[in-house]
């Protein structure tokens, strides 16, 4: 076991500044109105830094810087752009522990996740998009002997990106890497719950980027996010969050006739077919871990497998083993490498989870384990901890239909394949799903029949670059994490060229 020292304490690998301004045009700029807001750590509830409270004036200033940089960056060769992304990746990798501790302290997630997942994935994401932009080719279409259509990909220009709080660095990188690879300049607004760790990253990599290519404006959604999302000066808005704000961003975009990409969450089914329990072997163990994945990142994942569907013939046995596995999840100090589940990201998130546990009980769902706030004692008493919770109930209940965004799974059973698909698809959302079976054809068919953009088969919660990620139904628009995201950050330019010396013949 290792326990990392908290940022700022002696022996810590990272120190937060007392205050962060906006990062605009390659330097730190105080907010126009001079106001700041306090940023608490969910680990203890204590405030640890303060953050610029951005407003429309700051957004305009960032847009000025971005527009000043966009043309030059867009004209930079793909080799040079890729080199910048690779250097960012190298710099992050060399400072991985510092970034991991910074993100854990701000978000509350266990350090073993930031060390093993968030940061390595972010590093690889930059490298992936450095690679794909080098490999991207335009097209040539020969219309006839004398008429040729050339297709070029061109950057959109200046794009706005609004980042969620569940993976403050990784979600920013998911959006930054393709946008930068494609040659765009960015104005990025981090979530107000996790506004600081991105600045630890920006300070590390600022010298690698031309000024103005990446600008970070902090603040509240209504004061800084809205002016960015509704600006006539952005060519595209990317947002990860919830449906009402997603719709509002689409409404703003409709006024400006610009595209959006949206990732709006889900209520992902995790389907366990009976043959999973045919043996008590490594695969059975893997499937039990797959069930328990609802507790990863405290359940604060858009693809949290928050509905477990278990075939009736193995229901009691498998669920019993799964509950036992859930009880073994070690809750503790997020900076302790043995800790498996840390703190919820904010007090309002904690309150919302508890309100859902309440309605779940009212609707008659049975709590098999957990179901309450955890007081871990000492300095952690002020933090926001929930014990991993397993509910048993019916798919029509609200805890089966709404994203709780906490370590809460709702379990029900199905009789056969058709019943499984009916329940799996009985949801407004279609972001993620899991399918577990030893029978490859059952797993394949289920994977194709579930209406979701990402179906994990015999695994869960893997997010490698090079595997497209995005939603069906109300879970959003667009596919991140893959080369196709370049299309969402580029225009297609067609040059239609005549090599004929003769008039076209109309006039």
């Amino acid at each position: 076991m290792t326990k990392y020292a908290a940022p700022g304490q002696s022996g810590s690998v990272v120190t937060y500044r007392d205050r962060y301004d906006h990062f605009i045009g390659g330097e730190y700029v105080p907010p126009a109105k001079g106001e700041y807001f306090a940023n608490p750590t969910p680990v203890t509830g204590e405030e640890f830094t303060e953050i610029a409270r951005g407003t429309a004036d700051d957004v305009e200033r960032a847009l000025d810087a971005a527009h000043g940089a966009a043309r030059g960056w867009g004209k930079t060769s793909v080799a040079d752009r890729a080199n910048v992304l690779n250097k960012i990746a190298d710099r992050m990798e060399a400072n991985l522990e510092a970034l991991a501790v910074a993100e854990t302290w701000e978000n509350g997630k266990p350090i073993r996740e930031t060390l093993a997942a968030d940061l390595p994935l972010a590093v690889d994401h930059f490298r992936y998009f450095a690679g794909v932009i080098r490999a991207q080719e335009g097209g040539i279409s020969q219309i006839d002997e004398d008429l040729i259509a050339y297709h070029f990909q061109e950057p959109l220009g200046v794009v706005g990106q609004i980042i969620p709080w569940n993976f403050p660095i990784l979600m920013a990188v998911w959006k930054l890497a393709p946008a930068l690879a494609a040659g765009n300049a960015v104005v990025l607004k981090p979530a107000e719950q996790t506004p600081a760790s991105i600045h630890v990253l920006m300070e590390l990599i600022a010298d690698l980027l031309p000024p103005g290519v990446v600008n970070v404006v902090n603040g509240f959604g209504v004061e800084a996010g809205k002016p960015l999302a509704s600006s006539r000066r952005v060519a595209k808005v990317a947002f990860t969050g919830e449906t009402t704000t997603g719709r509002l961003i689409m409404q703003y975009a409709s006024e400006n006739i610009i595209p959006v990409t949206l990732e709006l969450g889900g209520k992902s089914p995790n389907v366990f077919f009976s043959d999973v329990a045919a043996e008590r072997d490594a695969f059975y163990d893997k499937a039990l871990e797959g069930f328990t994945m609802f507790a990863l990142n405290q359940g604060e994942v858009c693809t949290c497998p928050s509905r477990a569907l278990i075939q009736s013939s193995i229901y009691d046995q498998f669920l019993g083993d799964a509950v036992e596995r859930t009880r073994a999840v070690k809750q503790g100090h997020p900076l302790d490498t043995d800790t498996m589940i840390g703190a919820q990201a904010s007090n309002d998130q904690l309150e919302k989870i508890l309100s859902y546990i309440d309605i779940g009980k009212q609707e008659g769902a049975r709590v098999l384990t957990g179901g309450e706030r955890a007081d871990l004692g000492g300095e952690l008493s002020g933090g926001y901890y929930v014990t991993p919770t397993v509910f048993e109930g019916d798919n029509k209940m609200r805890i089966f239909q709404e994203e709780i965004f906490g370590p809460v799974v709702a379990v029900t059973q199905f009789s056969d394949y058709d019943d499984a698909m009916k329940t799996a698809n009985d949801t407004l959302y279609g972001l993620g799903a899991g399918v577990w079976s030893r029978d490859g054809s059952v797993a394949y068919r289920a994977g194709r029949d579930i209406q979701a953009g990402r179906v994990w088969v015999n695994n869960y919660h893997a997010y490698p670059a090079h595997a497209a990620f995005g939603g069906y139904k109300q879970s959003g628009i667009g596919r991140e994490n893959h080369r196709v995201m370049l299309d969402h950050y580029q225009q297609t330019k067609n040059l239609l060229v005549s090599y004929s010396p003769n008039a076209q013949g109309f006039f």
Partner: protein
Amino acid sequence: MARVALTREAAEVLRRLRASHGDLMFHQSGGCCDGSAPMCYPAGEFRTGSSDVHLGDLSVDEFAVPVWMSAAQFEYWSHTHLTIDVVPGRGSGFSLEAPLGVRFLVRSRLLKDEEL
């Protein structure tokens, strides 16, 4: 039948917001991050349409604050009564109360048979 209500503390926040933003509205969100939470906007900021259901109006003094939800979401929520409360915190999204250091929250109860 009333489907929505609000706590005294939430009403107090609405009074403050109304003083600075004018008439208000709620749209109940779904989905990830700050989803499943009520979003408060200046009236008309969020354009509702045929895919939305008007759950009712909250009365704050002489003012009415309409509460909306998408019709698809309402199908799963229709058996519950919603009380809008407020807790310390910091929601993202564009909801108006976040700069005050508070976040609106829905507390739910099952509708009784005589209410259905």
